[in-house]
């Protein structure tokens, strides 16, 4: 599908939906049905509402921190939407939209940020690995799992989600190189959102594009407009078919933009101006799909309102659930360290139990 110019020329990338910032850019055909496009739209509206809920919960002190995916909904939702149920996702911490599309209740994703547990969903059920905070380390897990599945003769692709900053890490290189050497069915989905906390893309790489890196390692790279849901879906489906067919890994560079600060603990005013962010607001992925679908008569006011009402009610229910969620017995911290019982940990567990009991007794006495 891609020619080399889309991989190495920063001005070139695959687009399917008209881009107001590049009205003359050529458009490729997409492979989505009307129902699929509407489903992408509803999902993107939903995740934007949930992301806003998380931001407000953090400001209210209910979450320790939150990493917003505002502006990256097309990249995340459309790529996740293209996956087969048996495929495995290896996410970083920002892939909440991907998790929601995989079926994880949003409250279970919030749980980690409320500090209930270090991760609070069943990774096997959703085929969504525990999200990885050390940058790029999980890309190797994706490659390893894909190597294992290929060895077992199973039909699945592992998708490693990373950001532009992650491509500077050695583990990203090693993961891509191993995948290429062994022909492992991995899709490296790089959301190039232009910023790694405060460091811009040009400080991460001197390469004209991130997609070009795949060529140096002997596998296919693709560059796609990450704010174009139809293009992201089409390119991801194509990459998955390539990997699934035994032709080896694919790197997708989805060009997008992180509208919010890195996390709620970050302050983007210290390193970039609103003048830089503003044009990207104009290229908002939901508005873009909205215009396309409205123009084609697919998205009516009723459908749009329905999507927003559904998102609002889901957010309200999620809010109630996360507020009600509290940590369990603190001695659970000893339960999952090892498969078998360890004498040292049992001693420390008993110490904590005794401490708690003494505290409760002194509380009752006072």
């Amino acid at each position: 599908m891609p020619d080399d110019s889309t991989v190495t020329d920063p001005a070139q990338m695959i687009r399917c939906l008209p881009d107001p910032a590049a009205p003359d850019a050529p458009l490729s055909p997409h492979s989505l049905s009307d129902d699929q496009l509407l489903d992408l739209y509803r999902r993107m509206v939903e995740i934007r509402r949930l992301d806003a809920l998380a931001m407000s919960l953090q400001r209210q002190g209910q979450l320790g921190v939150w990493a917003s995916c505002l502006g990256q909904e097309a990249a995340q939702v459309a790529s996740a939407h293209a996956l087969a149920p048996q495929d495995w996702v290896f996410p970083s911490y920002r892939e909440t939209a991907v998790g929601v599309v995989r079926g994880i209740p949003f409250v279970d994703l919030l749980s980690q940020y409320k500090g209930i547990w270090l991760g609070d969903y069943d990774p096997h059920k959703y085929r969504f690995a525990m999200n990885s905070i050390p940058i790029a380390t999980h890309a190797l897990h994706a490659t390893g799992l894909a190597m294992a599945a290929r060895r077992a003769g199973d039909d699945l692709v592992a998708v490693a989600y990373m950001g532009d900053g992650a491509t500077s890490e050695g583990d990203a290189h090693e993961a891509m190189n191993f995948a290429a050497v062994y022909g492992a069915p991995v899709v490296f989905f790089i959301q190039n959102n232009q910023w790694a906390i405060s460091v811009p893309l040009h400080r991460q790489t001197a390469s004209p594009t991130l997609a070009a890196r795949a060529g140096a390692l002997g596998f296919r790279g693709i560059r796609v407009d990450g704010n174009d849901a139809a293009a992201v879906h089409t390119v991801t489906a194509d990459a998955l078919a390539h990997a699934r067919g035994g032709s080896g890994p694919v790197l997708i560079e989805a060009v997008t933009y992180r509208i919010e600060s890195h996390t709620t603990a970050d302050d983007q005013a210290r390193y970039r101006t609103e003048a830089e962010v503003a044009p990207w607001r104009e290229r908002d992925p939901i508005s873009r799909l909205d215009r396309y679908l409205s123009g084609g008569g697919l998205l009516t006011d009723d459908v749009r309102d329905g999507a927003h009402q559904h998102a609002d009610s889901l957010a309200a229910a999620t809010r109630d659930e996360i507020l009600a969620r509290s940590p369990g017995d603190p001695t659970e911290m000893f339960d999952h360290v090892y498969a078998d019982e360890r004498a040292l940990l049992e001693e420390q567990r008993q110490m904590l139990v005794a401490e708690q009991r003494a505290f409760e007794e002194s509380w009752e006495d006072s």
Partner: protein
Amino acid sequence: MSGFTMVEALNRALADELEDDPQVLVFGQDIAALGGVFRVTAGLTERFGDRVFDTPLAESGIVGTAVGMAMYGYRPVVEMQFDAFSYPAFDQIVSHVAKMRNRSRGLISLPLVIRIPYGGGIGSVEHHSESPETYYAHTAGLTVVTPGSPADAYSLLRSSIRSDDPIVFLEPKRRYWQKQEGTLPVTTPDIGTAVVRRPGSTATLICYGPTVDLCLETAQAGTEEGWDLEVVDLRSLNPLDIGTLVASVEKTGRAIVVHEAGSFLGMGAEIAGQLSERAFYSLRAPVLRVTGFDVPYPAARLESFFLPGVDRILDAVARSLAY
């Protein structure tokens, strides 16, 4: 000729597990055609095909892909070529191998073994003689095992591969060619059990990996002084078999920990702490440490000055007895 070396024991353990369990995979650098730089994996790829394979030269990649394979139900056994070359994989080992079970609330097991030849005494260049055991033993979620004999090398490696927990398996490289009488297979006590290798009453020498034979040799030399030294081989550094150490000290009243790693915050420090908490009234002298110095591992012509030796240990016994 009967008997087997530690390299032969490790090779046979790998072969027997590959034979018994189709989920076992063995991979690393130079381990296939070459059979590993120490020949531990010699002949395995000929016998088991692509279940024993070479990787690109990237330690983090080796351990990180092993994590993914273990998540999928395989039992990877990976080799780090030398001790100091395990450091590029340190992030994977500490941040993921050790923590995945806990992070996932017990839903993900990582049954993988990271084999690391370690320790000095072979006259090698820098980065080939280090003792990194404390880094790994300190990390919650890791199990750290180190055999001191060929029989333990065989039995503990088989147990490690069968464990549902990730294991850092430290192989004392200067004992690779040491021979032991008997035939394989053998079964020795399981992971987490220390063993009294020589019973005695004068003092307890606590050792592991490369210092086990050294302490046995020291105990033999000590008989000339009229000393009857007990030698306890830890075999497993985490979990640590405190019970066996306490029982020994209750008998002898004196303990000397011997390892190649530096003393500062080393295994000896932990053992001294544990014994002072749990056997205070049995101790007739402070727990002493005979260890490598707290300097970077020296050049080959200086390593004999750095490494603990028989005389340095006997001197420590004398100091202990002088209390």
